[in-house]
């Protein structure tokens, strides 16, 4: 098996691992899972898919579009050369070796298996802090939508702080 094929296979493993990542409980500007899935799908040579499972084609701008962009202003879209260089730097084509991609898989699976959380167990002293024992429980309940704050519990928090 050639090494590039090995990299692709490992990247597929990584994508599978990322799929098991929990979804963000509340939507953020960027989602770790989605961004990294897209990144490693490209490495694995898999097509990128949207929510419904349809593949998204990476559409490149046509020649006419590029011409119109360049002609519109002196600098394309008013961007300076520096800025363009920066954008190009940002979307680098990543080159993984077998070694580096194996490391990525190992690191991600360590994170997903809660290795350090279990090893450095802090116990109920910090998970149910004495000063505010239900702090984390309330936070998670609110995020999951299990228990909604009503007016009175909200006022209680405002007045007493917990």
């Amino acid at each position, binding site marked *: 098996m050639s090494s590039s094929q090995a990299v692709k296979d490992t990247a597929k493993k990584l994508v599978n691992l990322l799929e098991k990542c929990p979804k963000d409980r509340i939507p953020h500007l960027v989602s770790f899972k989605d961004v990294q899935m897209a990144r490693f799908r490209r490495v694995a040579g898999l097509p990128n898919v949207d929510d419904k499972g349809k593949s998204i084609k990476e559409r490149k701008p046509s020649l006419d579009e590029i011409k119109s962009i360049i002609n519109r202003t002196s600098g394309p879209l008013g961007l300076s050369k520096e800025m363009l260089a920066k954008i190009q730097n940002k979307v680098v084509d990543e080159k993984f070796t077998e070694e580096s991609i194996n490391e990525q898989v190992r*690191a991600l699976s360590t*994170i*997903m298996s*809660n290795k350090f*959380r279990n090893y450095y167990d*802090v116990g109920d002293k910090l*998970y149910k802090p*004495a*000063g505010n024992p239900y702090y984390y429980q309330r936070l998670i309940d609110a995020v999951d939508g299990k228990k909604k704050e009503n007016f009175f519990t909200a006022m209680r928090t405002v007045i007493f702080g917990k």
Partner: protein
Amino acid sequence: MSINRFTSSPLPALLKKASFSYRGAYLHQTNVFTQNKGAASDSPELLAKSSHLNSKPLDISKKAPVKTAQNKIPLAHSKYESSKYELPKWKEALGELVIRTFRLDMDRVRAGPVAGSYYYKICKEQGLQYEDEPLSETAKYFYEDLKLPRTFSQWFQITILHEWMLFVRMRAMPFKYGRNYQQKLVDRTFSDIELRLFEEMKVNSGRIADQYLKDFNTQLRGAIFAYDEGFATDDATLATAVWRNLFGGRKNIDMLHLESVMRYIHSQLYVLSRLSDREFSTGKFKFVPPGVKVEKLTPKQEEELKAKTVAKYKALDKDPRTLPSERSKLSYTN
């Protein structure tokens, strides 16, 4: 003067004594990683260094480097915070008299010098960098090993990560005191940032500085919420929060760097969880440097550590010579 007098004069003595050693919880001085360099996943720093990905920092052209201002804001704003300052004896005696007569709650009073000054200082130091000065050891971990951009807002992110770890411990103190400690730490953070914006980042307009401060406030709230959520659930969520905040959501993140930060966070929290309220509230904590592995305590060591702490503070509380300002009602057994 007894050895344990470190809260009598407000700060100078405290800062000196605060550079303590960890005894048990910090049995890191084992030679594991000096002897065995092959097993490169021992400390967070080695873990981050072991990556072969060679990713580059996102912001290569430093757009807004932190310049060393001529009037650089020192870590200590006032003379009372300087390690060289000593309170005149008569002031000290007067202070003790006031505390005794009005029965001041020293646990409350101490929040200022401990959380506002000392704990803010150690949080600030972690990521502090100036363009034309060599990086400190911990700053090297963040800027060179984790390849974060050397900017002011990155420094802020590193600082709030450390502040959050202290918040987690502060929540475990009695509510009244823990809340006060948190408040003092946040207050000091923003007053310091305001000064730094004007003096070091050369922001001339008060309106713009206010906008930055509001922005930093939003970042702080968002980050604390995300870290809390991750702390209460699982490492995958916590890593996502770290990626979004500390790493600014960069696309080509090196997973090893994330893993290294997870190790860093959990080892700090472990050390924090082994400290009693009394020790923590009197400023007996400092962050474990990233180049160091935190060894877990065996149950026996843990017991010994506890017994030692209890014996120490029992003696301190019984001793009639203990000054009113050194007394505390916080528990030393938990």
